């Protein structure tokens, strides 16, 4: 399937997931196990995406300018910077690290 196909499928799944919440009985909200799985999934996926985007280059693990972005973003978040500032700080840190000779 082409990239367009996967994009449209992802959109359809998103709409179906949201709509399903309006159709299922609210009793499911009393099920702590289901809420735990949904919460853990969100955290685990975001952590995995952070790790891959920092250290993976195809199937290789590398340490390059992106580590500077990770560190700088962490400092910005710790200082309670807004999301857009955090993203800009990450880009700036990676750009500077490259300018200074990092891969």
């Amino acid at each position, binding site marked *: 399937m082409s990239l367009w196909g996967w994009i449209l499928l992802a959109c359809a799944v998103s709409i179906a997931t949201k709509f399903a919440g309006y159709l299922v009985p609210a009793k499911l909200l009393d099920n702590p196990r289901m809420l735990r799985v949904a*919460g853990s999934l969100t955290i685990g996926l*975001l952590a995995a995406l952070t790790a891959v985007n920092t250290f993976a280059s195809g199937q290789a693990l590398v340490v390059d300018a992106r580590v500077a972005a990770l560190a700088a973003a962490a400092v910005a978040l710790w200082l309670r910077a807004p999301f857009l500032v955090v993203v800009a700080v990450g880009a700036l840190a990676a750009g500077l690290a490259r300018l200074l000779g990092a891969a």
Partner: protein
Amino acid sequence: MLPSRSPAVRVALSVAIATGLYGLSFGALSVAAGLDLLQTMALSLLLFSGGSQFAFVGVIAGGGSGISAMSAAALLGIRNGVYGMQINVLLRPARWRKLPAAHLTIDESVATATGQTDPDEQRRGFWAAGIGVFVLWNLFTLVGALAGNAMGDPARWGLDGAAVAAFLGLLWPRIRTREPAAIAVVCAAVTLVAVPLVPAGVPILIAAVVAAALGLAGLGPVTEGLEPDVEPYPTGPAGSPRGDA
């Protein structure tokens, strides 16, 4: 009642502006990942869930397949289904409003609605934040994608660093206590171990399986991770349907 007199609508507008602006970064990262302008706009208009959209283009940028990208986006979107249940209980939308309400069910609209106690304010907050974020998110996605196209080589501008920062920024507000932090560390470690062993994109799905298993085993926190990634109000949400539904 004038909209400006409604505290929920005022909060909704500030949330919409802040969130809409970071559509800039999504648009730029999406074209840097290799999606074209129309594909980028399709995600913002139809998928319309920031975390899932970043996940989709993040997997593609890393060389992952379309099915891995779609799966990561779908799994990250499961929390929207939980939000949908909460909003359905809270607002009891009329039948014909359920589909538009569902499409606008995202972190920001849910956080704005559940932070109010008066049912009318909850309703106004939900719709104002949902529609406001939708309009501005799509507008700024377009601007970001056009700017990204004009920038050329993404690495030169540190856009790969921007992606790292974006994912950490989405994760950060969800790890305020030890348990979610432990889940994050375990899943990041599992991902890195898997990177050299399986095709690109698959490590993220392996981490999802591990995260779900940790949640099933009862290690996950009941609400952390499901807290919307914005805090529109200075204090914690009041009048949340959680627990009394």
